[in-house]
């Protein structure tokens, strides 16, 4: 079962995986983002009220909210795609179409969130 899988970073960049690879990469980046931001939020509020308020001030800014909403919404929708494809492996035949459907869900949802966040941010 064990195979040689020694692939360097630069060989990895040359691999042109297209949509599924982009989804895989964004899933990891957004996952790390959620761990860092939610982790900071929990720790700051549980252990130190003052640091908690300072961090909350950053988290409440509209620029930050655009970032964290991208992470959460993308991670949730992409995760659902992965679960659905894992539950019904026959659908893997259409995995590239699944990526397009996923963006079809993500873009309008994120666009609505972004419009609300930005319009509220500009209104103060």
């Amino acid at each position, binding site marked *: *079962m*064990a*195979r040689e*899988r*020694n*692939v*360097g*970073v630069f060989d990895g960049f040359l691999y042109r995986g297209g949509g599924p690879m982009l989804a895989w990469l964004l899933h*990891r980046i957004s*996952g*790390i983002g*959620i*761990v860092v931001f*939610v*982790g900071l939020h*929990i*720790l700051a*509020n*549980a*252990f130190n009220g003052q640091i908690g308020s300072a961090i909350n001030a950053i988290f409440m800014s509209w620029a930050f909210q655009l970032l964290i909403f991208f992470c*959460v919404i993308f991670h*949730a929708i992409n*995760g*659902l795609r*992965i*679960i659905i494809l*894992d539950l019904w492996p026959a659908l893997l035949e259409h995995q590239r179409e699944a990526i397009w459907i996923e963006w079809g869900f993500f873009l309008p949802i994120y666009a609505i969130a972004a419009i*609300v966040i930005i319009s*509220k941010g500009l209104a103060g």
Partner: protein
Amino acid sequence: MQSRPAPQPGLTFEYLMWLFIRISGLGLYLVALVGVIAALVMGARTQIDMGTLIRWTFFPNSGHVANAGVDLELGWVGLLWQVMQGMAVVFGVTHGMNGLRNILEDFISKPGTRLIVRVIIILLWVLFLYAAFTLVLSDTL
């Protein structure tokens, strides 16, 4: 750079975590859906703004809606929400820490380094669970 060894077949730790990630992902969807539907039933549509509703949806803690001026005694605090928060914490923190382990171990081939990373991640896991449960257990009227 060398990648980690390929996973083995069978009922291994990696398989169980693979399964847990999917189940906890669906569990987090469930917690969020129950939270947002119950909030709307409790009158969130007219009582609180959208940002507060979303914070409640991610983590149904009364601290997330206290500033909105809702009457907490009308169902926003209680054992149900402590159980929901507990599910969100256990599913969320474990899901996140395993994801972190998954990403890090893709870049680790030495067993010694992997052991160190796993110990650090288990310590982080315990720390996050402790910090989050102090918030959950103190969320009473």
